[in-house]
């Protein structure tokens, strides 16, 4: 029941929110929903056994028996941190937008809640059908979000995002079908249960089939992640989305989740695991470097942050391909950390854009003098984003780099090269936008308001806390990655 | 979208005008004719021998009548609806400005 509640509360409240009339009602409704999810998640967290990689809090109801579809929920150490991340940031996001004045607030909050429900659904689903349903459900609210409240190129960006990622989902669906039928053939009964299908993968006789299934699934995940060269939807969508939309994109950690939950257990049983590792590692490493360079070349602050997101997500694939428990858990942690960091980054961009009317870095300047609170939070976050130790970004990056180096030396070298570039664009942006002489033509900007300070401040504190003490989430990730690696031991990978 | 001045449609129409529709129609019709004819000739129709007996069968009309009301009563019934339907439709459409 617990997981069902976590997934369904946002969805139900989304409908209720849609029915509200005023902004006050809508935001209150959204806050109630997100806070209840947070409370439930915290309850779940404290009742979760992080020493085992087994699925917990399972729920199972048969749905379409003739096709082997069931309503099957459950969480493990891979999903719980991401659920936690989502549950934590969402109420803060509502708070962040608390005083925003925008058209159709009821729809706005409703879409936020749908996104939350869908993302949580993906994390909880243990049935491929359900998984795919939630997976696709994330598309729609985000599409609306970008289309309605987005920037000047919102229509282009939203359609591009929608279709691009939809194509990827469909390819993934093909992979799911392949797996489904191959397993159906071997076992004689249809089932879309994720654990079942993952276990059956190795019994597929044809190596080519296994590879194709793997690649199709991988494609779906890495486009969502995204990873070079399938990223071109990202800068547009991230940039054109409203601030809340960008944050929702950031919290859309389903691509990486799929890689850990689905790809890694399959990896050793593909016909050519080394090739797959090479693909994943190379894509990850190149993304890191490429995203960093691209971020450096951007003039728009938000676009820069978007590319930096691409760069950071490279660690996820790289770490996953590293196949050492430290690297895999580091990559999982990177997802968690990235969610926190990028949330603030995009919130900052939104605040700056709103206060000054521009996001072009060169047009900004000296904002720290007028927005000291924002400056403090931003400096902290930028430091976290460039991988400063003591903050979450470092834990993740170090774990990925150190762990992956055991198996993938060349790619780690590429990734290391990006670190300086990463630092460069972060600092460059900070210097141009926040420091230096205040540009009077920006007008009389005011600092972030109380709600925004609270929202960003809490996330900033979490970045610091988990940077100093990652164990609360990293332990369960480690348990799971050790489990996954343990499964692979002796597979010659 | 792109402003196409050289659209396929225009190519088709110009070709069409050039050849005159009849020639094109004739080609298409001949193609059809040739294909069907080849197939007809290539088929060995299994029935030729029994022809004379049927010619002398006097109860043709009776047989038809019988079939209409037994085996093929359903199409017959449907036909009644068809005719009714056609009548309604035709009257409605063909009727001039009603009441004016």
């Amino acid at each position, binding site marked *: 029941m617990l997981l069902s509640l976590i997934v369904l509360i946002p969805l139900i409240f989304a409908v209720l929110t849609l029915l509200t009339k005023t902004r006050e009602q809508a935001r209150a409704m959204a806050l109630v929903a997100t806070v209840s999810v947070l409370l439930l998640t915290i309850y779940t967290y404290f009742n979760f056994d992080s020493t085992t990689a087994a699925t917990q809090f399972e729920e199972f109801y048969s749905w379409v028996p003739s096709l082997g579809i069931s309503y099957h929920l459950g969480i493990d150490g891979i999903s719980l941190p991401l659920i936690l991340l989502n549950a934590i940031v969402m109420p803060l996001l509502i708070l962040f937008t608390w005083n925003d004045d925008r058209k159709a607030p009821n729809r706005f909050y409703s879409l936020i809640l749908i996104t939350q429900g869908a993302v949580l659904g993906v994390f909880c689903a243990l049935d491929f059908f359900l998984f795919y349903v939630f997976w696709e459900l994330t598309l729609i609210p985000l599409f609306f979000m970008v289309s309605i409240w987005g920037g000047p190129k919102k229509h282009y960006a939203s359609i591009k995002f929608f279709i691009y990622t939809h194509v990827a989902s469909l390819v993934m669906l093909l992979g799911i079908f392949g797996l489904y039928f191959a397993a159906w053939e071997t076992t004689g009964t249809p089932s879309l249960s994720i654990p079942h299908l993952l276990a059956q993968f190795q019994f597929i006789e044809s190596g080519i089939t296994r590879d194709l299934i793997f690649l199709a699934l991988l494609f779906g995940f890495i486009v969502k992640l995204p990873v070079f060269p399938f990223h071109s939807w990202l800068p547009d969508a991230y940039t054109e989305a409203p601030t809340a939309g960008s944050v929702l994109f950031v919290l859309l950690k389903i691509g990486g989740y799929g890689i850990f939950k689905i790809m890694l257990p399959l990896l050793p049983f593909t016909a050519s695991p080394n090739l797959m590792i090479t693909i994943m590692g190379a894509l990850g490493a190149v993304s890191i470097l490429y995203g960093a360079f691209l971020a450096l070349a951007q003039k728009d602050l938000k676009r820069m942050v978007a590319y930096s997101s691409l760069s950071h997500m490279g660690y996820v694939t790289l770490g996953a391909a590293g196949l050492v428990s430290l690297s895999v858990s580091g990559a999982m942690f990177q997802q968690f950390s990235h969610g926190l960091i990028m949330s603030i980054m995009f919130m900052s961009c939104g605040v700056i854009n709103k206060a000054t009317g521009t996001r072009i870095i060169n047009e900004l300047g000296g904002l720290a003098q007028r927005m000291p609170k924002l400056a403090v939070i931003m400096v902290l976050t930028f430091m976290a984003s460039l991988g400063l130790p003591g903050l979450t970004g470092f834990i993740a990056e170090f774990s990925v780099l150190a762990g992956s180096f055991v198996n993938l030396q060349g790619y780690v070298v590429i990734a290391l090269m990006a670190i300086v570039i990463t630092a460069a664009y972060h600092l460059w942006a900070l210097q141009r936008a926040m420091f230096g002489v205040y540009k009077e033509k920006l007008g009389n900007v005011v600092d972030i308001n109380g709600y925004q300070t609270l929202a960003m401040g809490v996330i900033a504190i979490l970045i610091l806390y988990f940077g100093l003490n990652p164990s609360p989430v990293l332990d369960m990730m480690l348990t799971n990655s050790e489990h996954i690696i343990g499964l692979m031991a002796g597979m010659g990978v | 979208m792109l402003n196409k001045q050289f659209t396929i*449609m225009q190519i088709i129409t110009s070709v069409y005008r050039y050849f005159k*529709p*009849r020639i*094109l*129609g*004739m080609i*298409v*019709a*001949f193609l*059809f*004719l040739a294909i*069907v*004819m080849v197939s*007809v*000739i290539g088929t060995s*129709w299994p*029935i*030729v021998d*029994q*022809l*004379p*007996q*049927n*010619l002398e069968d006097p109860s*043709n009309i009776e*047989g*038809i009548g019988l*079939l*209409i009301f037994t*085996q*093929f009563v359903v*199409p*017959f019934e449907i*036909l009644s609806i*068809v*005719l009714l*339907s*056609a*009548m309604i*439709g*035709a*009257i*409605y*459409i*063909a009727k*001039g400005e009603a009441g004016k």
Partner: protein
Amino acid sequence: MIPVELYIGLSVVIFSIGLYGFMTQRNGVRMLMCVELMLNSANINLVAFSSYHGNLTGQVFVLYVIALAAAEAVVGFAILMSIFRMKDMIDLDKINILRW
């Protein structure tokens, strides 16, 4: 004895003529006539097969087809009449406001 192929050949030729006319005629009434031609060529087939097979199914079918042809023609003429009433002509290739 006349081989059945000849009947079929005839019917195919008539059918092709119908097709040809359908494709090339502009006048709606002529096009309708071509449709009738095609239906009747099918009737030739049916009758021929019926008698060569020695069962009356084909002949019953012919009767139904004739009725259907009538019904179809009724509706068709009604539509053409309406068009004529509106445009004062039934050159159907000039009626193409619906395209692309």
